[in-house]
């Protein structure tokens, strides 16, 4: 950890993407999102709405969840339009 002499003015973070250093997945409590690939239309709304970095995208296609960054907020599941009325993201109980 840095000492007080190395604190930047106003504690402004000058490094882009530094939130990747903080794995917030441990905050997740009761529920985690589950991706159901056959219902996914790859609209990437989940990627857009995710407040952290848990939705991975490769070559314009949605990939698996990265649970290291998933707080289990459920925003992705709410926003997911799914396919023909079937959600591609559902929240399920965390297995202890």
């Amino acid at each position, binding site marked *: *950890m*840095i*000492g*007080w*002499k190395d*604190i930047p*003015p*106003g*504690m*402004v*973070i*000058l490094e*882009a993407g*530094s939130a990747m250093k903080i794995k917030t997945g441990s905050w997740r409590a009761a529920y985690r999102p589950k991706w159901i690939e056959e219902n996914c239309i790859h609209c990437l709304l989940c990627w857009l709405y995710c407040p952290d970095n848990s939705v991975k995208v490769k070559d314009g296609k949605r990939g698996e969840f990265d649970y290291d960054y998933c707080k289990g907020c459920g925003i992705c599941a709410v926003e997911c339009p799914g396919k023909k009325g079937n959600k591609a993201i559902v929240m399920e109980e965390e297995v202890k």
Partner: protein
Amino acid sequence: MTKVVAVTGNEAVANAFRQIEPDVCAAYPITPQTELMQRFASFVSNGQVKTELILVESEHSALSACVGAAAAGGRVATATSSQGLALMWEILFIAAGFRLPIVMPVVNRALSAPINIHCDHSDAMGARDSGWIQLWSENAQEAYDNTIQAFRIAEDMDIRLPVMVCYDGFIISHSIERIEYLDDETVKSFVGDYKPLFPLLDVDNPKSFGPLILTDLYHEVRKAHSETYKKVPQVVLRVAEEFEKISGRKYGFFEAYRLEDAEIGIVILNSAAGTTKDVIDEYRQRGVKVGLLKPRLFRPFPYEEIGNALKHLKALCVLDRADAFGGSYGPLYLDIAASLCNYSQKPLLINRIYGLGGRDYMPEQAAKVIEELMEIAKTGKVGSLKEYIGVRE
């Protein structure tokens, strides 16, 4: 080239804003500041400045918009009084914590309750530990001069801190005085082009303001912030020195009036210092060795310099235009007492509260204080440490 004019304090400060032409002003009207921003709004609507004036729904929003604009990379100013400053409370600490060089005239007015629109210093005193630099001004000339210097102080790359310029509501804000304006070009070149530090609108270099800092780093961040204020006094003096070159007017941490050979003294802020100096002159003619100290840089408080200037006195009265409720002493008194506490030879101190809610401060009140100080110096006895003066029984 200077121009002599007869203007109100608010008009003078609005003119300083016009000359400096900040990129963004976000403000909300409140008596007695209203006239300042009203006049500046005319400059905007007449096309005399290109400032973006943001009219918001509260002072909380005004300062929040200023924080955003300053973080984006603009030169930013606002102004307020009394309840308006109180409503800005949480954002004051954020502006200072982000090290944003916002300039804000505070036209001093009493706080509610009871509601009152006239002068006292309880508004700015309530914000004295928020991390804003505070410059206090006796008259319209000092308010104008301090406003111009405030931008240079705030924007100095060594400190980057917000600055309040305090002057007395109505007594100074609405009274017409003779003052000297510097010409536009002189002010513009004195203040110079704005140099942003970490502007958010520099999108090629992304950055984040306001991260969550918890137990592992907050203590270090606050220590670093606290250290920054040690650099402020040199910046204030450097800017004052340069300002003297363009104006011929000298500024420092405080004004010492007939203090050097004095035996008794008065410490007082802002407009009441003028009245006090007149009364001191009368007593000096009668051979009474009395002097005055009027702080200008109140935050950060120059403890060492002020203590040095006062320690030779036998008796000293600190006159506060703000009470500290909850049984404490006036805020100015507490700082003066702290500035003297470690000297073995120091004056006996008393604290008198005057002029709340715009109550006139009359020469007779200053005379009464001087008489009391003469008695304390003679007998070495302090009757009552803290009292209201000019109050009906």
